[in-house]
């Protein structure tokens, strides 16, 4: 019931039903366009039969050596299309892209420590908390983040996901 396709610039005009959600940030133009220009396969939209936007995932590949990995920048689903398995499908695409196109060792993401729904969801998808990042989210709703990871087949011994026992600060992040 979903058409999955590349996210295109014109979608920015119609993604409001998704982005008016309080947990979904609306970024500036260059943020989205940069992702589209640099990682077009990593930015996927889900479209409903009436052509409205159901949700999207945006990601990128980054890192060096054994830290080469896929990163989930945002995954979000419009309220009216939640609990249909859409986030799961979008995350699967992102993992496929990370594995098949970019050949990464793992996938990682940041999530607000208060976002219980999302954390539970990522755990269900096989992600585990790798470390806590203090004050990762700044501004009015400043908050810590969990850096969660899931190993891809290339990381045979799952070294990338061994949790760090101590929290880090945003300036300690590798990228």
């Amino acid at each position, binding site marked *: *019931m*979903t*058409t*999955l*396709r590349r996210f*295109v*610039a*014109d979608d*920015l*005009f*119609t993604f*409001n*039903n998704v*982005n*008016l*959600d*309080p*947990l979904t940030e*609306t*970024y*500036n*133009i*260059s943020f989205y*366009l*940069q992702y*589209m*220009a*640099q990682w*077009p*396969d990593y930015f996927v939209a889900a*479209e*409903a*039969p*009436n052509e*409205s936007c159901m949700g999207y995932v945006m990601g990128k590949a980054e890192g060096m050596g054994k830290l080469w990995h896929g990163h989930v920048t945002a995954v979000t689903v419009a*309220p*009216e*299309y*939640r*609990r*249909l*398995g859409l986030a*799961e*499908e979008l995350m699967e695409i992102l993992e*496929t892209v990370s594995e*098949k*196109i970019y050949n990464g060792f793992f996938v990682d993401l940041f999530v607000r420590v208060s976002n*219980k*729904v999302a954390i539970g969801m990522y755990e269900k998808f096989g992600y585990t908390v790798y470390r806590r990042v203090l004050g990762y989210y700044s501004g009015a709703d400043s908050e810590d983040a969990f850096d969660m990871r899931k190993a891809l087949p290339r990381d045979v011994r799952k070294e990338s996901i061994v949790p760090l026992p101590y929290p880090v600060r945003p300036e300690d992040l590798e990228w």
Partner: protein
Amino acid sequence: MSDALERKLRPIYEALDSYNNKQAVALCTKALKKQGDAIIIKSLKAVALDRLGRDDEALEICEEIRKTNPTDEAVLQYIVMVYKGCKKTKEIIDVYQSAYSQAPRNEELANHWFMALVRVDDRKQMQQAAMKIQKQFKNSRYLFWTIVTIWLQARDNPGGPQTLLTTLTERMLVKAAEEGHIKDYEALQLYIEVLETQGKLGEALAVVNGELGNLCKVSADRKRIVARLAKASKNWKVLLTVSKELLLTSPDDWMSYCNYIEALKRLLLDTEDPSTKENLIEQARSLFSVLESKASNGKRLKRGPLLAGLELEKMLICSGQAVDDTSKMSGLITAYLAQFGSTLSCFDDLRPYLQFTSASIVQSLFEGASRAAEEDLSTASVRNLVNVEKIRRWSEKKLSSNQAKARSEYYMTTYQRTMPLGEKFDERELQPGDDYILLGAHSLLDLYGEDRGQRQLLGDAALILEYGSARSKFNYQIKLLLIRVYFELGAHKRLLEVATTMDIKQIQHDTLSYLFTDDLEYLGCPESAMRAVVKSLTIYGSNERETPEMIVQAFKYGTYSKIPEFIRFRDRLKKSLQYAVSQRQLYRVEILRRFPALDNLGYYLEILDDDFLKYTDDHINSLSDNRDVTLLANWSAIERPIASVVSGTQFPRKRELWLKLHSLIPLILRGICNAETAEWFGHHQELKEVIDIGKGGNEELDEIAAADALYNVSAVLLNIRDVPPSAPLDLSDFQNILDRLKATVPSHFVEQALSYDHLRCLTLFLESCNYACIGLAAITALIQGHQKARGKAVCTPTVESLTSAIRAILVTFRDELSALKKITTNPDVVPLTKEHPSWMNAQAQKIRQDVETELVASWTSSLDALIASVSVRIDRKA
């Protein structure tokens, strides 16, 4: 770089890094005294000066440097920085072009030159540069730059001589393919797109099915391209087959279902043979049932197969392949509800098929769902019931006034029953019963749409929505509707407060602002209106700054498909209808704010950018309407968005005429204020035409009346401007304008609360008065000029008597406004129900009180603002 130079540079860099620009300038000046020719220091000085806002000096230095034909990358970088800041795009191109021509082996410079051309979107130059660079560096990346730049020119104007360019693009791509330069998915896509555009679908198909098709790393991508091409070439058999293959791997892929069903329809229509038909239909049904079982074996149920079943039956009925069989469709709908009734999207999923069901089925669905919720009140049973409520609403005929009120009350009591279910939800999640709030408000608003005299329905709808919003703080549907209702009530304060909580930003300024900024300038809140509009305009500056850089990025990363996509995006924002409307709203507010001082207004109008004031049909028709008008939920069978029901006209409203009016008004005022006659007369005549069109088409008659006042003022001034200084002046036409104004002072709002309509009428009257005041001020200025020249001219009537006539009108108007203010603060006129429906508990009572207070406060502030505006005009010295 020498050590000595480096020692000198270090403190300059440090000063610049810490934004100590003054110090940086001083250091540079000092260093230059000793080393007058160090252009690196000069360029740094230019940067520092530019940062201090001393653009002219900075640019002068840059020019000086440019004469030396620099190729040093640091120097180039700094002067380009200055040029960028001053928006000197042409200079940037020249700088890089000349640097590159001096160092033709420097690939970095070549890239800079090309990208500078990309930023200004000069496609011909881009092509020439790309070809030159390609010749020099022989890299397939530059070959594709060349191809894309030609392709961009070809796409620009399909049909014209550009077809030659399309052929050229194709030839280059064929050659690139032969020589093995097509090496990634993006290049492949470009190749296929060019073939497709020319209708060479067979060739395109051959490419995808051939070796190059392997560039699609995900096999479904390749099949999707095949499906697209098969569809375009009406090759229904192929389309049927690939769609089937795609569905077997992903049984929820809606596009493939649609393609499959479309192919099936065409094949059915193409054959007369009943057994072939039957066979095809049988195949489809069995495929869908395979997919259904496949989907339910998976981790979770997918909606696709069941909905595809509905889509299939719908197609068969609509194309005459099957009889309209309500029971079959109803069965499928019931089955779908049983599986997915508790998902939020269920109603929207089923909407296209509801026309095939019957009232009795709906009734029995409703009874079943109610019973289920009665027995076990859970989030799931409530969501299911809400979906059925929506179906019921959709299929119902119009309700009587009492029925609708009773229904709204029923929705609210049911809502209250569901409230405990969501108590523990994260506040950022929707509450299970939220849609009952919307249904409750919709019922009242529908009724209001029928009888706009019943204004308390609006207040009651606001109350319901506020009540729901207090519980579900982030439900944007509730908030957006609330905004529209407050707008109709003429209450700008709370409306803008609610809008602020929505945190509209970035691109949403273009697509969503209209929901709360459209027509805000009529609500008697000039300051807030200006702030809201100015904020929304920021996105267009961002577009100018950011999007060209991203087009550069797409070239850089070789994402060819994104280049036309980004260009289109940039143009849609640049030519946004919302942009044009907001810009004019701003002018409008400013004109009212600035006037009592004629020269202040004149100066403001003088510097308006004429590009923003274009009013030709061609220009207006070329604007891009990016407003997101599908956002507000609508559950009625009549295609009438709820926002239009609330406003009583199409919302957002048509803007063609309005845009013309509000281009011409500032242009004519410019003529009047600055006695600038060159274009004034032309605009004056245009305005007459627009006014006649408006009158003829009954469009915006109140706006037209105000524009008419301006037209008449303009006519008087055009008439007298050439009268010789000492000749008598006949101002009787101006007296006529004032007589008309006097006869139309708004005064018919006795014993009624304010509303958008009222405020609009008051604001437009104020504008008409303003035009008369401006006209009189201009006449006065003209006469004063004459007096200096030669003696005193005789005016009939005298300027003094006109001035006191206008004052008298303004005083009457002000008295009316003050009287209105007294009425408005009387709680009895506030349009809120006096009865107490059963759901009104203590909390609802409190919210009712708040709504009342808010409305009164907002209206009072609007009237105060209008009174203040009138007063400055009364007190204005002649």
